[in-house]
């Protein structure tokens, strides 16, 4: 049950009043300046390590209403001015691609908006990817997940952050939590404080430093050999499976299976820290980071591996997203694929060799 608070701005073209967050003036149709609390759009081409920039300016020649065909300039507040259907949102489908790295985030079929977010940085042979899933029973989960991704990414890539990889992940989690706490919105009805899950992957020098809190997963799909699950969920199902109370099949049949036991948000226990692990990459293969929108339909690393197929990182990410949508698309789907070509280094000393990404690529997540 959402709460919408709106204040009023003046149209710069005709002087009529409009609600802040309106994309267009209701009176003359002119674009209105962005005064947020607008419908959240992802930061396009944000600089590495910076907070998201403002959404791109609205354009009246955007796509027509997918329901009734009314033109985009009739839209008000992001909804069709005739039939009320939500106009296509930028967040509904987002992709990011770099050599060796591909990320797709998709609304899926059954959810009305994409509450997953990601952020990625690719520079100097190092790949950092964040995947956060907004908790849909909370207020503004899409804003929470995006804020968490952006804040954590900034900490992980910062040269001033902790040198110790685990301490760096803990600091990234703290920054993400602080960002979630600053998302506007208060609990309303049965909707709690803005909340999300957390998954960070930092791939460099033949290792993957991973930190997770919640139920986003990471797995290793080797070029040869068996796929391997790398992280453990904080979920009702995982607790039942690990305690031996239920088998995996039984656990995931249960209606509570997807209830998460830890999250980032105002009512999260301050003692909750992310699970950290350093995975030494054993050889060529792919690292996959994903939200439960994918793994709902592929409960094991082997199942994800079987669905992944061949192709470059973005192609594989797109294929896994389509796989989840074709299977029902019951939740938002976010998939990040990182290709590892290089042979494993003997030590953890900084390698001069690029692990398959070009050093000049340096970008945040994009749509």
């Amino acid at each position, binding site marked *: 049950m959402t709460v919408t608070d709106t204040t009023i701005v003046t149209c710069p073209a005709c002087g009529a009043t409009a609600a802040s967050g309106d994309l267009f003036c209701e009176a003359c149709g002119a674009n209105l300046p962005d005064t947020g609390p607008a419908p959240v759009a992802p930061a396009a081409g944000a600089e590495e390590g910076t907070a998201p920039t403002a959404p791109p300016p609205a354009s009246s020649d955007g796509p027509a209403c997918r329901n009734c065909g009314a033109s985009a300039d009739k839209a008000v507040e992001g909804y*069709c001015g*005739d039939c009320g259907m939500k106009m296509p949102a930028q967040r509904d489908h987002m992709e990011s691609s770099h050599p060796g790295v591909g990320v797709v985030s998709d609304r899926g079929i059954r959810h*009305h908006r994409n509450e997953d977010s990601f952020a990625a940085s690719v520079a100097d042979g190092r790949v950092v990817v964040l995947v956060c899933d907004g908790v849909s029973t909370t207020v503004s989960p899409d804003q929470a997940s995006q804020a968490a991704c952006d804040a954590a990414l900034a900490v992980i890539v910062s040269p001033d952050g902790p040198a110790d990889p685990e301490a760096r992940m803990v600091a990234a989690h703290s920054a993400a939590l602080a960002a979630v706490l600053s998302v506007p919105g208060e609990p309303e009805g049965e909707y709690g404080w803005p909340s999300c899950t957390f998954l960070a992957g930092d791939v460099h020098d033949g290792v993957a430093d991973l930190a997770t809190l919640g139920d986003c997963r990471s797995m290793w799909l080797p070029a040869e050999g068996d796929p391997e699950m790398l992280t453990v969920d904080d979920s009702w199902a995982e607790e039942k499976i690990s305690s031996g109370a239920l088998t995996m099949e039984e656990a995931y049949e249960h209606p509570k299976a997807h209830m*998460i036991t830890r999250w980032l948000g105002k009512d999260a226990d301050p003692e909750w820290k992310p699970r950290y692990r350093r995975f030494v990459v054993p050889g060529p293969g792919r690292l996959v980071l994903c939200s439960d929108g994918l793994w709902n339909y592929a409960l094991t690393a082997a199942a994800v591996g079987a669905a992944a197929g061949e192709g470059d990182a973005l192609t594989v990410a797109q294929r896994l997203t389509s796989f989840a949508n074709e299977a029902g698309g019951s939740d938002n789907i976010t998939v990040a694929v990182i290709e590892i070509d290089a042979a494993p280094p003997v030590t953890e000393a900084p390698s001069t060799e690029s692990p398959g990404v070009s050093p000049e690529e340096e970008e945040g997540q994009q749509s």
Partner: protein
Amino acid sequence: MTSTVFSASVFQNEFLPEGTTEVNAVVTVTAAGGDGGVAVSDVEKIVLLIVDVSTSMEQPRTKINAARKAAAAACEAMPDGVLFGIVAGGDHAAQAYPPGGETSLARADDQTRAEAAAVARSLPTGGGTEISKWLDLAREIVEPYEGAIRLAYLLTDGENNDNDRNEFPRAIARATGVFQCDARGVGESWRVSELRQITSALLGEVEVISDPSAMEADFLDFLDQAIGKTVADVKLRMWAPKGSTVRFVRQVAPTIDDLTPKAQPVDALTNTYPTGAWSGDESRDYHVCVDVPVGNVGDEKLAARVSLLVGADAVSQGLVRAVWTDDTALSTRINAQVAHYTGQAELAQVIQEGLQARKDGDIDTATIKLGRAVQLAAESGNDGTLRVLRGVVDVEDEASGTIRVKRDAGKLAEMELDTRSTRTVQVKRATPAPEGN
């Protein structure tokens, strides 16, 4: 600069089960003082006292004496600068103050307050009750002051004369949109339904004054509230999508008032509804219910856009959404505000039905209806309504609504329950934790 800032919040469960079309939401509009809002310093304010001086007011004389005393007290309390006047109502209506024949108003100062109070203390009585004449004169007096906050207080003790039956609703229609009117009935010879016709159209409240000695305090209360009004002519504007049907737009707090029949079309998709004048510090809740063309699972539509208009300017807005889902955990949630006000509307309705059944001598139906009313009032914490219900029924068990209709309840108790039936209480709020994603 003094100004009023309006804000709107929407409470709803936007999730609809597959194949359904009904969207419910409660929109809370709050006015508060602040910078940058609607300027209120230069709004003209008019207070008109309409006092019944028919012969029945002398039976007993305590009624007319109390009315004179109360009107005089109200005149003496009139703040500087307010435009005011007194209409004396009988078979005809006369402007008792300011004197002189022409329709006019006086601006309150020491001199006019004293003059008006003297006139009030010696209001002459005589004749019957033709309220249409009172309303028409009141309208003529305040009509020239467009843009002003125009409030009237009508006090009567009796039923309207039969020969006014046709003109009465017409006079109300003529006054609609010109001024707002509160109505008070003193004693038990007047009809609640009659005065409610006036206050429903003229955006006021109807109340019982059971004891003439309470008249003065009530008059001064009204004046207090009238003086607090700072923004004139506020309207609710609602857009709903093509192909939709607005089932109802209902004010649900502080009182229940169905705005649906008051809709004024703006264009094919938009209507406005009058809400009268607002004070700089108040909150009103509206329950809107719209049927929208069905969507597919995963679709999100705007079901309504509710804005508050001051003059031609939208000063705040709330969005009511519809999101179709096959997740029953989401779609079966009951929004606390919507449920609460659905209950308060039912409470008002079962009281009316129960009172009607009681009048018709159908005690079985009255027992069921008023029992349900007791249950709803107790459940929602509407203590005021529960109190007046107890004047008409003996309560055995509030929770189950087990009651006995009092055979000997007085007419006054019934009228108090009738007038009180539209009063609501606001919902208490809760804040739960997240469960899943």
